[in-house]
């Protein structure tokens, strides 16, 4: 059995320990021809990188991690990055430029391990013109300071690419520096609140630990004023966001969780300040600062962001930055943004077509899979209209631009209403629904209790009123959901399911309908493993088969064509393609047939519904020579997962592709009624909106630009991708393709998380009942408050994180350490 697995160069399938693995990247070496000494390399590209590193004495790279390298792209054209030297483009990318020194931050998704960090920070050892380079690994960015007089930006990009770390520069990342100031501010707020909390607590100790009259009143006054001073920045700066959010909620006539929090914070501070200034008591400032401190920690925990991922990509991120323009037979690389109507452009193999245009010269084969979901490349002739977004397969073509990139057919989708509406209404989440009843309940208790005390003593009545509001401040309540959801988010993240925010977990728990795309979502686009069973094909036989299937546009023929290594093609006589059966032809006097089993007289039909595999048989001179097994077209674990999902959810399939695999898909999705083929991006969007109008909670699972509208229109849009760092349309969640089979567990986990939150609500209510029972009797001392508040917060925090992990462990998404 020969392995034709050359297309699948995925890192997951690497056999690192194998004898024949590449010293540089760890991929399997097909032969031993490329080597230096005892070190084998899978290709010339890897060998070149090793040579560069060897010359520069940077081979420590290989000691940090074994086989850390990335195969550089072989078709590296020197002027691919020439557009970077265009002044307008350069200005957008460069961060800082003064005299000789220039600083640029480039995104390089290929970096993946400690060796990568090491090498990228040693660039200055390799090239004297580079002064310094610093890696930010979570963002997969490298900031490089270099001599701009001696080194062009394009040279820098070429240097990185030659090492395998090709910088990813597209219209979306250019000119939009990420703002991290929000997170910085949160750190500052936490620092400030923590500082105040610690100091106020120490200043409160004498009050707690002494009996009345034992402390010098002067100390009391000084400590009180100092505490007030520490608390002021917490009141004014650190808890600013809560006021803002509460106010925003009230303006839309909704009571969110921040309303009772703001009420609690406000009452806490006013009463404490009043007690201190009138010297009638010690106040609750330690509770106040502690409350804000814990709340902010909860906020930080919730703010788990995946910096290297982008959930907001629009069409611009998918387009290249540069294009080769042809003006009177001279080619020049220009930025796509400068492309005008009527320009002639040259598009090479595997390049994207950046604008709607008309084909001028030679037949094109355009792969629209990313745009339309159609898996087969489309043949185009001179004069044909070609939409932007297609990928050219094969020869170099020449096009004339009809519309500028920003006005192309593809970008029209983004003008649709769904893209201009705010995505989520935060107001209907569980916590906020609950906080409405909570707030009114607490207010009612406070009013009734103070009315009762009013008949006895006015001062006590005021004290009781404020004490109820203080002790009922829903700190534990507000912390339970960030910690439970934050933990779920981290567990998902470890399994390659990256959620945009914690609200998505809640939305995920409510899902009752799942709509799926086919190409790229259920299938692994372009990743087929093809095996030949039978006696090994000789080189001549391979050449003959390749030459035969070359003439067929059938996807299976194309796959076999791509898998065969033989290079030269030989002429085929009497070529015939019989639809539904196969192809035949005569080469060197031999009669070759490639096609289905039935056609070639086999009992086996060729497709096996059970394991989603396809056999293509080969006969030479009417004798069966063997068969190609084309498998792995569908992602692993798909059938068991889909059958589990089918029991719980309504399932639909929306595909831009032809109904070729209808029968097989019907067995996966239950019935043929739920399958929809030939769907345009607009069709998909409309379908999702229609299903949602019936009251269903829809999750859309898709991958390409063609699903962008549907992803956006659904409640939870999940983008499936094989390379999380590179391409994914705007969505709520990004899922690594190889973990698609865990989708059912993810939904189960979201539901479990929501029930954990409900239980923690009950716990925090119990704390509130205890606190309120102190408060209504007028006995809430600062000490009781100072103990109750952190105790309730911390216990809820421990309960939620632990039980969320426990549930994840039961579902199989998380492995708990022994001893629990």
């Amino acid at each position: 059995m020969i392995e034709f697995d050359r297309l699948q160069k995925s890192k997951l399938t690497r056999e690192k320990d194998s004898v024949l693995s590449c010293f540089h990247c760890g991929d399997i070496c097909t032969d031993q021809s490329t080597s230096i000494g005892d070190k084998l390399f899978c290709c010339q590209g890897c060998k070149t990188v090793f040579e560069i590193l060897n010359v520069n004495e940077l081979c420590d790279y290989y000691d940090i991690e074994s086989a850390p390298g990335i195969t550089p792209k072989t078709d590296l054209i020197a002027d691919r990055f020439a557009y970077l030297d265009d002044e307008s483009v350069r200005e957008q990318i460069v961060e800082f430029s003064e005299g000789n020194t220039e600083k640029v931050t480039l995104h390089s998704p290929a970096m993946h391990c400690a060796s990568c960090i090491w090498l990228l920070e040693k660039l200055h050892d390799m090239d004297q013109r580079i002064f310094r380079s610093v890696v930010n690994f979570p963002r997969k960015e490298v900031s490089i300071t270099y001599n701009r007089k001696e080194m062009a930006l394009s040279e820098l990009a070429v240097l990185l690419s030659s090492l395998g770390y090709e910088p990813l520069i597209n219209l979306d990342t250019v000119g939009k520096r990420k703002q991290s100031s929000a997170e910085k501010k949160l750190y500052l707020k936490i620092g400030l609140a923590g500082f105040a909390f610690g100091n106020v607590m120490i200043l409160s100790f004498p009050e707690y630990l002494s009996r009345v009259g034992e402390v010098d009143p002067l100390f009391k006054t000084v400590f009180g004023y100092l505490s007030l001073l520490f608390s002021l920045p917490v009141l004014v700066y650190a808890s600013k966001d809560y006021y803002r959010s509460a106010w925003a909620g009230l303006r839309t006539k909704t009571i969110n969780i921040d309303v009772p929090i703001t009420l609690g914070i406000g009452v806490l501070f006013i009463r404490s300040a009043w007690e201190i200034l009138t010297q009638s008591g010690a106040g609750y400032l330690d509770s106040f600062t502690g409350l804000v401190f814990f709340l902010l920690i909860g906020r930080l925990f919730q703010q788990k962001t995946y910096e290297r991922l982008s959930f907001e990509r629009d069409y611009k991120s998918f387009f290249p930055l540069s294009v080769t323009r042809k003006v009177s037979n001279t080619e020049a690389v220009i930025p796509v943004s400068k492309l005008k109507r009527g320009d002639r452009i040259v598009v090479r193999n595997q390049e994207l077509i950046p604008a709607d245009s008309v084909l001028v010269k030679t037949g094109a084969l355009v792969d629209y899979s990313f745009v339309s979901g159609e898996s087969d490349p489309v043949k185009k002739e001179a004069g044909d209209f070609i939409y932007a977004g297609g990928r050219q397969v094969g020869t170099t073509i020449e096009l004339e631009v009809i519309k500028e990139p920003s006005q192309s057919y593809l970008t029209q989708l983004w003008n649709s209403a769904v893209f201009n509406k705010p995505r989520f209404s935060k107001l209907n989440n569980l916590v906020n629904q609950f906080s409405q009843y909570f707030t009114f309940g607490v207010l009612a208790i406070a009013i009734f209790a103070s009315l009762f005390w009013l008949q006895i003593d006015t001062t006590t009545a005021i004290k009781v009123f404020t004490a109820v509001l203080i002790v009922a401040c829903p700190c534990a309540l507000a912390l339970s959901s960030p910690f439970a959801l934050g933990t779920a988010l981290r567990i998902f993240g470890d399994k390659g399911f990256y959620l945009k925010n914690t609200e998505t977990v809640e939305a995920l728990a409510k899902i009752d309908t799942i709509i799926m795309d086919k190409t790229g979502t259920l299938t692994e686009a372009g990743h087929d493993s093809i095996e030949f069973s039978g006696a090994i094909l000789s080189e001549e036989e391979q050449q003959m088969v390749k030459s035969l299937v070359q003439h067929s546009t059938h996807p299976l023929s194309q796959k076999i064509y791509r898998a065969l290594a033989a290079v030269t093609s030989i002429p085929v006589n009497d070529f015939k393609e019989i639809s539904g059966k196969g192809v035949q032809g005569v080469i060197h006097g031999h009669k070759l047939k490639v096609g289905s089993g039935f056609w070639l007289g086999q009992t086996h039909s060729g497709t096996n519904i059970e394991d989603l595999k396809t056999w293509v048989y080969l006969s030479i001179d009417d004798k069966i020579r063997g068969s190609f097994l084309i498998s792995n077209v569908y992602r692993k674990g798909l059938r068991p997962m889909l059958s589990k999902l089918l029991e719980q959810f309504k399932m639909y399939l929306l595909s831009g592709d032809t109904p070729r695999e209808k029968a097989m898909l019907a067995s996966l999705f239950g019935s043929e009624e739920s399958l929809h083929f030939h769907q345009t991006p607009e069709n998909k969007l409309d379908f999702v909106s229609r299903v949602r109008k019936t009251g269903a909670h829809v999750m859309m699972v898709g991958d390409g630009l063609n699903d962008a509208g549907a992803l956006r229109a659904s409640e939870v849009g999940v983008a499936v991708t094989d390379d999380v760092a590179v391409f994914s349309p705007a969505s709520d969640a990004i899922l690594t393709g190889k973990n698609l089979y865990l989708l059912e567990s993810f939904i189960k986990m979201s539901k479990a998380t929501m029930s954990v939150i409900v239980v923690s609500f009950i716990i925090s209510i119990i704390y509130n009942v205890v606190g309120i029972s102190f408060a209504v009797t007028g006995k809430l001392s600062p000490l009781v408050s100072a103990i109750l508040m952190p105790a309730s917060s911390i216990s809820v925090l421990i309960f939620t994180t632990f039980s969320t992990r426990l549930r994840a462990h039961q579902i199989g998404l998380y492995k708990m350490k022994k001893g629990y």
Partner: protein
Amino acid sequence: MYIIFMLMAFSLTASLIFLGAYIWSVRSGQYDDKYTPSVRILFDDIKHSKKAESSSEAGENKEENI
């Protein structure tokens, strides 16, 4: 007993210095990347045996390779 005010003045100064240092560290971007420094610190320095000769050579070599 009033010595306590002086002690408090000292402790406050010290704690304010720490707060200041924290604010500076956040502002200067030390919290921007919490992962890479943990890896970076483990790298050994490379021993450059023939760095002086090879650096000029390295420059030429690279241009060939690109």
